[in-house]
């Protein structure tokens, strides 16, 4: 194997130096601010999905993942696949805050000749492990990575973040089956259950949380994943303590020889009053007034000071 020696002899990156929950919450607020104003500035982009996953991604990059911004392609780094690639700006914001590239570079998002494409491009962006954008493909890539790591005896974990609407893609279910068949305990899927997709179905009064139907309110996702032989952890995707606990549980049960899924209950557009809980902000461009509101709500002025 060409990179065999390289990999086996290379050191495994360490976790981020202990970062307090308060610090992660502050980081998440900055990330949310970057999401909103970067998209406003580039006049195109997704908002609701990036905002719902922000806390999960911050928890991964600032606490869980064994990665090294100075050495983005370390062979033994943990891998992260943003299967819901349309939420790229959310990932870019966190990568920038984590030091993969200057925060100022976010301003090039969606502009021509940028390293920050509308959907993640592994060939352009430091820290992006897999190119995504066409939904439903990331988990298969993650299965291939986790299976390859097992075959080569490489010790790292692969994380794949999916959208709840994205779970409607059949290819995801092909991968769910393969992960179980190959007992990939080094693979963790996280589903951003933010309750909305782009258009979807009319909301059912009393059943759905927001202004359109929940992608999965008519089924029992936990029972389905368990039936497929996965370990399932339910968590509030906006509670850092709970998220970190879920990550730990996943790691500790790795010996069970089963892949794990974290069903993270979130809110689409979380963190900003006017984007919260509405499919209308799946994507959108905030105006001056809205930017000011968000800036205040996210406490960006204090940060600035």
């Amino acid at each position: 194997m060409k990179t065999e020696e390289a990999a086996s002899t290379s050191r495994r990156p360490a976790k981020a130096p202990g970062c307090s929950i308060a610090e992660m919450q502050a980081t998440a607020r900055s990330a949310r601010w970057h999401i909103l104003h970067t998209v406003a500035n580039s006049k195109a982009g997704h908002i609701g999905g990036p905002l719902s996953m922000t806390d999960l991604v911050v928890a991964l990059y600032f606490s869980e993942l064994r990665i090294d911004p100075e050495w983005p392609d370390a062979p033994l780094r943990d891998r992260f696949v943003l299967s819901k690639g349309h939420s790229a700006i959310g990932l870019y914001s966190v990568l920038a805050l984590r030091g993969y590239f200057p925060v100022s570079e976010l301003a090039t998002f969606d502009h021509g000749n940028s390293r920050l494409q509308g959907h993640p491009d592994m060939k352009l962006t430091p820290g992006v492990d897999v190119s995504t954008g066409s939904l439903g493909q990331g988990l298969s890539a993650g299965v291939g990575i986790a299976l390859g790591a097992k075959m080569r005896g490489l010790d790292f974990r692969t994380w794949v973040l999916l959208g709840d609407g994205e779970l409607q893609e059949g290819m995801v279910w092909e991968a769910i089956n393969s992960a179980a068949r190959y007992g990939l305990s080094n693979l963790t899927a996280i589903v951003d259950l933010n309750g909305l997709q782009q258009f979807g179905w009319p909301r059912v009064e009393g059943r759905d949380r927001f202004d359109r139907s929940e992608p999965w309110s008519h089924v029992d996702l936990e029972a389905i994943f368990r039936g497929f032989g996965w370990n399932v952890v339910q968590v509030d995707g906006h509670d850092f303590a709970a998220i970190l606990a879920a990550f730990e549980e996943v790691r500790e049960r790795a010996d069970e020889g089963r892949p794990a899924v974290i069903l993270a209950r979130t809110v689409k557009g979380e963190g900003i009053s006017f984007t919260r809980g509405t499919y209308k902000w799946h994507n959108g461009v905030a105006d001056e007034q809205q930017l000011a509101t968000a800036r205040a709500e996210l406490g960006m002025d204090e940060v600035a000071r």
Partner: protein
Amino acid sequence: MRAQREVWGETLALLGESDPTLVVVDGDLANSTKADLFARRFPERFVEVGIAEQNMVGIAFGLWTLGYRPWLSTFGVFLTHRALDPIRMLVSQTGASVRLAGSYSGLLNGSSGKTHQDVEDLAIMRAMPHMTVIAPADDIEAEAVTRWASDHEGPVYVRFARDAVGRVFPEGYEFIPGRTLVLRTGAEVALVSTGVQTSRVLEAAEALARQGVDAAVIHVPTLKPLDAESLLDSLGEHSTVITVEEHSVLGGLGGAVSEVVAERRPGMTVHRIGLLDEWSESGPNAFLLDKYGLSSMRVAEQVVDLLGTAGATAP
């Protein structure tokens, strides 16, 4: 000028009144493709499938067996790539009247970048037996084609652009399948285009005229079945033909024209302008058209270069 997707959605909302067999099957993109205009008017004939393009095709096929004639609503790239196998077996091989609306075609899709751009749809759908492939030039033709395809029995793929372009046709224009149109006569070279690129090619011809280059402009809305006679009539006695498409130069309009010319008009030279076997990127429309050589100015430049260099080679 309205955007083609708007026209498509509005036209379906109108046709739904008189045609009870009209149903729209959506892949969670109705508010982008504008199928939501139909959904609001006929919720009981709007079938949301969610993010599952293969399933959309299977469901549309099933509805067709009961007398419905569905239009599919999603981005073209997810029909021509994600759902190609069901389209092949359940639509083309059965002759089902399932109408495929390939929205957000070409490069201009609101900065989504290469995972959402479809620069191969014409080549892919042209290769599929029994598939009708149409790329209207503007809002007027988009409406005419939407009406025609809604009446047509059999599989149809129509390419629709996200954003409005300069008008090409007058109100009341009648779409005749297969017919190619000479939009502008010119002695020096025949520029052949399709879809909304035709609008930019007309502007390129204006620019060329200002530089003293007299270029004809021919529009080919029906890529398949291609009416070779109509195309040859339009090409007339031109010795140099340059195809221009918001698509790969392999197998699309340039390929179709080359096939006809190489067989029927030895002596005519065909150059092809379009994407040179490359993926594109995210960016504003003007940036992309300029960088990838499809803006009217860049097209005019390339035409001048091609006319300048005898037997020039497109990479």
